[in-house]
């Protein structure tokens, strides 16, 4: 049986989506990067302007497609092309950004139709550089940010992550899979 499934990584510029996908992908990731030419330049010299793509192969006939969305908000018009067939959404937030609460609200609403049917997990990066807000603060932000949303998992995992740390990325994805069905791991 041919199975094409996607896991979507989203979040603001420079949060580590590309690195996180690279940690999982069996192939060198395909990116459409370009010289950043606007405010993005302040955070990152090159940035993803289309999307990142990686593959995790289960067997010859089964691949998991790993997509990273562009971080700039202006590209939200293209994001829906990614979500059909998606297993879930991994939202990565950057603790050093000026307003992570706004980012949380923005990205969850950008994928509001998607997360009705699939779970979302949230990874907060760069907490070693900027300790506030803490995970508990993000938990407190959630009810307001999601008041008008229908979410498959209204209490999503919120983990501190470092996209360069494979274990962190693995735990995010495993939390996503268990959020689909906590019963799947009883053979492990």
């Amino acid at each position: 049986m041919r199975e094409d499934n996607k896991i979507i990584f989203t979040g603001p510029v420079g949060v580590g989506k590309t690195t996180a996908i690279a940690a999982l992908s069996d192939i060198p990731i395909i990116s459409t990067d370009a010289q950043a030419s606007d405010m993005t330049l302040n955070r990152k010299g090159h940035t993803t302007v289309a999307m990142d793509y990686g593959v995790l192969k289960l067997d010859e006939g089964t691949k998991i497609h790993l997509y990273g969305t562009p971080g700039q908000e202006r590209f939200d018009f293209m994001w829906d092309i990614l979500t059909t067939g998606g297993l879930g959404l991994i939202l990565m937030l950057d603790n050093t950004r000026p307003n992570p609460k706004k980012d949380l609200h923005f990205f969850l609403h950008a994928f509001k139709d998607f997360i009705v049917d699939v779970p979302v997990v949230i990874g907060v990066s760069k907490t070693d550089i900027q300790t506030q807000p803490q995970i508990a603060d993000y938990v407190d932000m959630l009810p307001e940010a999601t008041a008008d949303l229908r979410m498959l998992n209204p209490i999503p995992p919120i983990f501190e992550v470092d996209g360069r740390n494979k274990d962190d990325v693995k735990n995010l994805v495993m939390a996503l899979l268990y959020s689909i069905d906590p019963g799947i791991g009883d053979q492990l």
Partner: protein
Amino acid sequence: MTTNPSNGGSILVRSIGMDARKEAVFRMAFKMFTRRHYQLLDAGDAQTPAVIIIDVDGRDGMTIARRLHEEQPEQRILLTSVSAHPDSIFPVLQKPIRMETLFPALELLLNGSPAPAKSAERSSATVMPIRPDVAISSPFASVAAPPATNPASAPAPKPVAPPAVAPRPTPLLRPEDVRHFNPQAGLLGLLQIVRRDQSPAIIVDDRQQVILRLDPVADQAILLTDDATLKSLAQEEHPRLQMRAPADTDIPAHASVRHLTLPSLLWQVGAWTADGRLIQQLQINAPVQLKQWPNLTRLTMLPDALRLAAFLARSPASPALTVKMLRVAPSDLFNFLAAADSLGLLRYNTAENPDNRIQPASANAPEAAEIPAAKRSFLGRLLARIAGL
């Protein structure tokens, strides 16, 4: 039918009204579509395109489209816009653009009439719904499959055996076998007091040796003992420990110390203290619920912690039901519950703490659909693959 202008098998597409970044998005979409080879022309490329895609959300987009149609009535034109433009003579692809509408729209233009028969008529192209709520048919699902990129360089996938392993047997949980403990006593009790009162403290043993220095405001703990000693102290029913306000001289200059976050310490001491026992406030047939997931990437990963968190965050369940549904060892569940409770992450109904009562599921939350067996098998294989990375 008009011959499609092509370049060595490529279907040439020109964009108008888009900046370089939007064009990059289309280039990537074309790269990902493997059934036909679309190529977006660069701005200076004079080749004749098969299709022109015009973003009409800019100031002159619609004017350009109309003028182009007047000058080249045979030219196929596709518009993109945030609006539906029901009166447009051209097919409109409404943003956000989706693979499942972009490529059918292009196919329709290429295989159907090249351009509106009469400029005065509305487009009869059936490209419409632009955000369809329909399921994607399986042939089109392959649209999302990106091109095989240099397969020679792709490492062979690690073989993942199908789930031939039999599910774990359901552990036996008999009420008479369940042992309880009081989490407000002993070392764990002292740590809970520090967390509750938000006052710095040190904990010393019966020889006045400093074991821990705790700063709840900074969420930090300094450990002056090894894990084995700490575990042993956690499991003592009545350890001879004292707590007092810290002083500058508590920690000798050359003492060997370890730094930990206070939540990490509480989580670990909670699990050690439980040691397979259930906290006394919980009954095996009474529901318990997670208020939020523990920050599991920064805490000791207890056995089955991710599964238990997923299960108990989804809806309230009694320990007995949790053991039955997840087939987890009761001792692992009890340790997890103790660790989660030490961080204040559990809800359960008690007369002493009415604010901590189980909350009903939000009426707004969608129902979780039954997972078909084939999908469960697939998810299980994927989980094994991720775990083995």
